[in-house]
């Protein structure tokens, strides 16, 4: 039987879209809608009935039990860390882009942590940062033995240790993105600048920096969003002890340990709102990305 062209067209559109749209609805859209609904109830995640409590959960989080919001402050450590990481990654990308001997090997080493299993690297770091762990032993070898600290036990230092672990993990990834952007900058511009007698700093300031600005802007957005969403590295290294709990950890704990799904949903909505606001602000402030 020969179908008409029109029927064939309808068939292929419907047939090819039914699976992806069903999956989109079930695993992405529906949970998002549910999340907002849960956040307006006092549901415990198990009992059949949940009663509508309006904005009570939000009021509790924002004004009454402000301890719930406290982990959000820890995002500031990660934000500071991610800005430092961005600066470092840009520096590394720029010098590696000059093609000094050995660049490829350095690039590979710095990128490597990104492809490793989260749990594995977190356990490796947990051991590395322990009292009398690998870091202390290394510091002793190079004569810095007097400077060892309780890296993950001391609440003043622990957040920074975790930031270090996180920079360790993600630096190479940012390096790679920036490096990719640098590769697209035409080399003859540097050529011309050198003939004019421009210093390396001037070359960076007037050629490289403007060329990679859009990518840096994008990475700042990703870094900000990322610092709000931190979960697995600190969860696996300290479990949130010694003042290192992040907001995502607190949210999941609320939902799955304390069985306060309504409250957890409200926290998740607040986090989501924070992410969207951060993205919106940076979109407005930062230079537009060129159309690709």
């Amino acid at each position, binding site marked *: 039987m020969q179908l008409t062209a029109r029927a064939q067209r309808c068939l292929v559109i419907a047939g090819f*879209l039914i699976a*992806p749209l069903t999956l989109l609805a079930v695993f*992405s859209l529906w949970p998002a809608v549910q*999340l907002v609904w849960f956040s307006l109830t006092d549901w415990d995640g198990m009992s059949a009935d949940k009663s509508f409590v309006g904005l009570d959960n939000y009021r509790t989080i924002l004004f009454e039990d402000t301890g719930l919001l406290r982990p959000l402050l820890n995002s500031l450590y990660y934000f500071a860390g991610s800005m430092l990481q961005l600066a470092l990654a840009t520096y590394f990308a720029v010098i590696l882009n000059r093609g000094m001997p*050995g660049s490829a090997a350095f690039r590979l080493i710095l990128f490597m942590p990104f492809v490793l299993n989260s749990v*594995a690297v977190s356990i490796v770091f947990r051991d590395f940062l322990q009292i009398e762990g690998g870091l202390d032993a290394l510091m002793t070898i190079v004569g810095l033995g007097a400077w060892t600290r309780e890296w993950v036990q001391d609440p003043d230092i622990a957040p920074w240790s975790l930031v270090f672990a996180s920079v360790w993990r993600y630096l190479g990834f940012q390096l790679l993105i920036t490096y990719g952007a640098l590769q697209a900058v035409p080399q003859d511009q540097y050529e011309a600048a050198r003939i004019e007698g421009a210093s390396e700093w001037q070359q960076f300031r007037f050629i490289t920096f403007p060329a990679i600005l859009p990518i840096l802007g994008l990475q700042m957005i990703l870094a900000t969003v990322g610092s709000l*969403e931190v979960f697995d590295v600190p969860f*696996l290294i300290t479990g949130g002890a010694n003042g290192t709990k992040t907001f995502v950890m607190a949210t999941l704990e609320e939902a799955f340990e304390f069985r306060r799904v309504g409250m957890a949903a409200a926290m*998740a909505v607040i986090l989501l709102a924070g992410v969207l606001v951060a993205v919106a602000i940076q979109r407005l402030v930062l230079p537009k990305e060129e159309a690709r």
Partner: protein
Amino acid sequence: MTRAAAMRRFWTGVHYVVLTFASILVVAPLAIAFINSFKTPLEMLRGEKTDLPADPVNIQNYVDFIERQPVGIAFWNTAFVIAVSLIIVTLIGTMAAYVIDRFRFPGRRAILLAYVIVMAIPPITTQVSLYQVMLGLGLVNSKWALIALYSGADIVSLYIFITFIGAIGRELDESARIEGASYLTIYWKIILPLMVPAISTVVILRTIHIYNDFVLPYLYTPRVEQSTVSMLLYKASDMMSSSTEAVLMAGIVIVIAPTLIAFVVLQRQIVSGMMRGAVKG
């Protein structure tokens, strides 16, 4: 030597020192874990972490880890989840990209908008309610939960496919159409082969992601019997005491080794795949 040349040499030296220092910081924790995986419990207890093991080919810890932990099943599950998720995501992703890019139909803009909205929602924020959905579907504690989420909720891959197909000229599929090929034939014989570069990017990005992810296995497959290597290590580290720390290090090496080997062998593909895909994600 001119002053400028001297300055340049000075700065090159500085760059090398910084790069070397950073590389040592990257490698050191891994190298220490590696050497400790060959130590006896007594060596772990007494010596410094940086001491070399007395017997550098002492594989007892590896034997112990493999015997005591469900290593085989975890690796099998990981391979299974990766393979099935990638097949599903490739098929439905390219099909959706084909239809969305090549056809104009009512509702198309709404579908695109839905994808844009979902892209803006970080998945970690919706786990609280997604968990209830998965419970309702009876998927919690099954590796099918992981497969469903790694394929069904993978919007980034779909976005890579849509961007890529938009850059493929329409001449081929239009002339095939004129010659009377069905849409299904065009998709299967023309579009899919042309999408191979995008597919390989997605395969690389997603394999790395699925192999390394912790959040989804932790939430949806708490039992190692249904879970991936992430959960294998997580459970093992929960059970271990300081006397069996070296065994845990052996487990870490077992999990990391395949990735490292693949990374060294496929570095060019991985790096370019990352660069292509990452910016869009």
